[in-house]
């Protein structure tokens, strides 16, 4: 019976074909480790946030006089309202944790390099959309931190030349963050996740065109690919299980860990809390913002701290394929960068006084310095590897990759590649 239904559909819609091509028989390098599971985890958390968000929206009131009360209504009166609320608040932090690890994986393994530049860029767009969504969502509970965080960050747009003040008022819909701001942030916070969903689809289209990279950073021979199902369906599900234990551990036993006590105080435009701190996932960028004494400079630096990622594929000038595995210099840089991020996060949580000002500036300097050093270090590293030769394993993988290029249809499509392909063919002939 089911077969009949499917064959009826098959005549009219490529459902079976798509499921086979993009999911069950989709080729995946066999050596992917668990760091490759975080994209799937991010999709899962997106679904959690969408579901919990929609059900919260059934009870939430986006009005300055009712917002805080409506959250209490959800927590106390709505059946399982407390659960749906904690899913959403914990989910926001989980989303960023998963995404940061996902991005870290991409940087470490060089998965942003050719031909995955657009995959990288669509990912960055997703990160920006996520940050905007989280920022707007945080205003909705209308607590002290919600209000003052929004007040501070919307004020930043005042650095826009000539029309700064008008831009800020336009964003807020009022001279200060108020009812107009709250209502529009709710409307947009509800909208953005659907834009994110579309962007995820585009991100996946890009992925499926170039296929996943792998821990060696070098494209494996076709024979070393295995079908997504059942190997990675089960692997991702297992990873999901581990993630859920941690996630629900927080949701049920420590949800308040992710909610600042100050935000349980209703917003008071007349009283600023002693310590305005954003959520943990914004801390490094907040630190960068504050480390530049000039307001405009701070905003530019903060924006650049994310936008500079766009340039990664071109800052990395090494021709040694892949990421950190066969590139010790690059590996050190990545580790230093991760540590620097942690330092920035720590500084971001402190009051901007005393030693923390200096620490913040040093950490910001290191942050940008690493990016700017990357072209030089990567080129130097490459020169050295040419002289000393790559590890045997890398050589073998590169050779297999090049043989694969000769066979694959779409892998390299530009005209220059004809020349490259000819060179490779010639080199292989010479060697054999």
């Amino acid at each position: 019976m089911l077969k009949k239904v499917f064959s009826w559909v098959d005549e009219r819609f490529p459902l079976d074909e798509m499921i086979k091509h993009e999911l069950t028989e989709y080729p995946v390098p066999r050596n992917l480790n668990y760091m490759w599971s975080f994209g799937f985890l991010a999709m899962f958390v997106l679904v959690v946030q969408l579901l919990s968000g929609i059900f919260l929206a059934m009870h939430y009131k986006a009005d300055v006089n009712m917002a805080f009360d409506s959250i209490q209504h959800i927590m106390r009166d709505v059946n399982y309202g407390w659960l749906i609320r904690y899913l959403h608040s914990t989910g926001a932090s989980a989303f960023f944790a998963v995404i940061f690890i996902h991005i870290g994986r991409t940087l470490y393994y060089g998965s942003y390099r050719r031909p995955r530049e657009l995959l990288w860029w669509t990912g960055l767009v997703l990160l920006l959309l996520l940050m905007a969504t989280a920022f707007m969502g945080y205003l909705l509970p209308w607590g002290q931190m919600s209000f003052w965080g929004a007040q501070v960050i919307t004020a930043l747009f005042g650095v826009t030349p000539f029309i700064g003040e008008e831009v800020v008022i336009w964003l807020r819909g009022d001279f200060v963050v108020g009812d107009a701001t709250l209502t529009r942030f709710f409307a947009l916070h509800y909208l953005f996740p659907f834009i994110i969903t579309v962007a995820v689809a585009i991100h996946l289209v890009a992925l499926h065109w170039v296929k996943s990279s792998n821990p060696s950073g070098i494209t494996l021979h076709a024979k070393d690919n295995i079908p997504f199902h059942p190997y990675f369906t089960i692997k991702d599900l297992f990873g999901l299980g581990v993630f859920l234990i941690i996630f629900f551990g927080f949701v049920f036993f420590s949800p308040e860990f992710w909610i600042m006590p100050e935000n349980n105080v209703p917003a008071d435009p007349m009283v600023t809390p002693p310590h305005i701190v954003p959520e943990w996932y914004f801390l490094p960028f907040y630190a960068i913002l504050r480390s530049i004494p000039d307001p405009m400079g701070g905003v530019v630096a903060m924006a650049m701290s994310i936008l500079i990622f766009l340039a990664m594929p071109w800052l990395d000038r090494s021709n040694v394929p892949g990421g950190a595995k066969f590139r010790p210099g690059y590996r050190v840089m990545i580790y230093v960068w991760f540590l620097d991020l942690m330092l920035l996060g720590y500084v971001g949580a402190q009051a901007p006084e005393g030693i923390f000002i200096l620490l913040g500036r040093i950490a910001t300097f290191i942050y940008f310095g690493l990016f700017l050093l990357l072209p030089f270090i990567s080129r130097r590293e490459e020169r050295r590897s040419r002289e000393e030769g790559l590890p045997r394993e890398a050589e073998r993988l590169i050779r297999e990759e090049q043989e694969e290029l000769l066979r694959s249809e779409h892998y390299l499509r530009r005209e220059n590649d004809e020349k490259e392909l000819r060179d490779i063919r010639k080199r292989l002939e010479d060697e054999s």
Partner: protein
Amino acid sequence: MRKLLVLLSAVAMSVVAQGAMASAAGALKMVEIDNSEQARQRGVEIVVSTCMMCHSLKYIKFSDLTEIGMTKEQINNLLEDQDINDRMMSLTPVEVRKESYGKVPPDLSVMAIARKKGPQHIYTLLTDYYYNEEEETDNHLFPGIKMPDALAYADAESDEERAEIEAQAHDVASFLVWAADPSAESRRTIGTYVIIYLIILTALLYLLKRRIWGKIH
């Protein structure tokens, strides 16, 4: 090694975010919160008779107190003019309170989670009153506080009297912990089942994963 670093940085960031919010409070006294119905009932009696002179608890209805084991008669005994279906609002008019203290005393419904280490904060505040040089009551935790010495701690003359007031403060804190998050207990109960279920499911998934991947290794 990589995974360890990633995990460490995640934990570090979150710990940092929490630790960094350390309030400027003086030393907090340690107090163990009592989850028993008796402690909460004693606490609510003090809250209704004393604290609600100036504070409201607008998110709690008197009828909600059945959740801490009180009968309708017991709840009615606490009431003056209020109805059992009313919210726990202070009977003193807003203007009077604003005049006396400069601002409306904050609502206590979520006070236990609105301060870092909320229960300890409440307990310490109530038992940190003393008489300063000007013979006025002042508070170690919150110098210059406008709130009067609600439990008359500064007036206590013996250790026994102080211990009695400390017990009251402890009961108030215990009640306010419940008031801030009434679903906490059922949350933890459900959570235990969820985690146990997930451990079983994840173990099964792991076995299945090993079996499926075993063929190609």
